[in-house]
């Protein structure tokens, strides 16, 4: 049940996209998301869709798998659409309750574009997390944020915390699944009842989960200490990030995409 959440999960396979430098993927994702808010006409969306389709194809991640991860955000998507649909002023298209509630032509357009934009945004970032291991991702982030060290931002520590947090997500999901099953076997009911009963039903799940999370954190801290971890000072990398030809090509394609989509999208 919980395993259906694919957002933020890695999809193991071997593809060009998987092998790209994490900095390219991070930067690319950020630029792609920004580009979504720059163009205003249908051409921009078409080019973005094409770009996404090519990247998905290259990444060898089944489209089905990406979409499954979007189920979790469906509610958010629907709320956005409804708000845009009903609250945008403009030329009325449909009126209800004697004109007090109306759908406008502008609202319809905005809602549709917003839905597409959000979906693209989510698909784009899913592709990054699906093709990059959490370790790689934080390596990339650490490297990109390095200039911030000059103003005393603890870049290494932030990256380490992020990689640990990311690493723990699947573990805790699995643990939740297990405890949920164990309590279900003892007659607990997580699905029925009103809000208060359901909130109460969470106690037998959350208490063991927190305890296990704390126990794991403790163990991890101990293991890190036993291996002499003492922060980023003087720490070297076994596999330093070095740009390859494919990374340069990827940057180039990204630039081409940006020019095309924003150029055509603002005509």
């Amino acid at each position, binding site marked *: 049940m919980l395993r259906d959440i694919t957002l933020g999960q890695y999809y193991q*396979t071997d593809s060009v996209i998987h092998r790209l430098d994490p900095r390219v993927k991070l930067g690319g994702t950020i630029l792609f998301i920004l580009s979504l808010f720059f163009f205003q006409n249908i051409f921009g969306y078409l080019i973005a869709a094409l770009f996404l389709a090519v990247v998905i194809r290259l990444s060898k991640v089944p489209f089905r*798998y990406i979409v499954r991860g979007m189920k979790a955000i469906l509610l958010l998507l629907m709320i956005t659409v409804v708000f845009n649909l009903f609250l945008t002023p403009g030329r009325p298209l449909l009126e209800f309750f004697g004109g007090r509630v109306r759908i406008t032509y502008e609202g319809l357009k905005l809602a549709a574009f917003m839905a597409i934009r959000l979906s693209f945004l989510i698909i784009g970032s899913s592709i990054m997390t699906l093709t990059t291991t959490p370790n790689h991702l934080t390596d990339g982030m650490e490297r990109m944020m390095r200039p911030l060290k000059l103003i005393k931002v603890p870049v290494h520590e932030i990256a380490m915390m992020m990689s640990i947090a990311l690493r723990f997500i699947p573990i805790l999901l699995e643990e939740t699944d297990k405890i949920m099953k164990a309590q279900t076997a003892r*007659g607990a*009911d997580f699905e029925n009842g009103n809000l208060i009963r359901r909130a109460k039903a969470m106690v037998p799940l959350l208490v*063991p989960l927190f305890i296990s999370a704390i126990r794991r954190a403790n163990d991890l801290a101990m293991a890190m200490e036993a291996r002499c971890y003492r922060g980023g000072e003087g720490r070297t990398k076994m596999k330093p990030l070095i740009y390859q030809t494919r990374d340069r090509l990827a940057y180039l394609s990204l630039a081409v995409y940006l020019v095309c989509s924003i150029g055509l999208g603002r005509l």
Partner: protein
Amino acid sequence: MSMVLEHVNYVYEADTPLAQKALNDICLEIPDGQFIGIIGHTGSGKSTLVQHLNGLIKAESGHIYFDGEDIDGPGFDRRGLRSKVGLVFQYPEHQLFEIDVFSDVCFGPKNLGLPKEEVETRAREALAQVGIGEELYSMSPFEISGGQKRRAAIAGVLAMKPRVLILDEPTAGLDPRGRDEILNQIRELQRKTGMTVLLVSHSMEDVAEYVDRIIVMNRGSVMLDGTPREVFRHDKELEEVGLAVPQVTYIMHRLREKGLEVDADATTVREAVQEIKKALKEQEG
């Protein structure tokens, strides 16, 4: 009155590159009142199998019948099933959550909607069955020792008075004495109440002494199924899949090879001692 599994299959993470065939065409019959050991190497599908039996996992294909009714059929009372088939998970102490041991054991029967007195009587009974004294009732479940936690967790399932009790590696991580104590208590309970017990383990030695029947799992399939004696005759095959038969079985086989006329089917130390004595006497006489 029994459980029947027909061609049960299960795959974890279907539709992903991580797809794992965990159960492969399992057919089993579990009559009432049997004490069964389910044995298999790590990852052979034991836990997956037992979670099917109380409907926590739904079979991909195949059918599971409880008292002749399909548990995945429409209108089947799955919550009722969970009170009849009690499942104690691997490391059950990780599911304790209440403020004291006694309330934690009450959680199961309370969920069955029983009146308060009945809940408490059952909790007391269950705690007594696993050998937890009154002095621990008001302790926090996080303060007691590992073995005591394990017992409290088992009591939590026993208090629901299941007809079928499934224990997934109830002795993992316990010392030999704690292990023997828990297994003996379970045997006592089984004899007294006549409930069906399924004991999951990866050690033959653990279960040989206690069970009427052993089911050996290997890579998601049932490899062997029979009485301990029958199963231990396949010592070579068992070794190939990484399972060892009890030490006494090895000794008896060796003694036979060396010419002592013993019955090599002895599965427990006590049986073996008797066999060897008998054989020696015969040799002398």
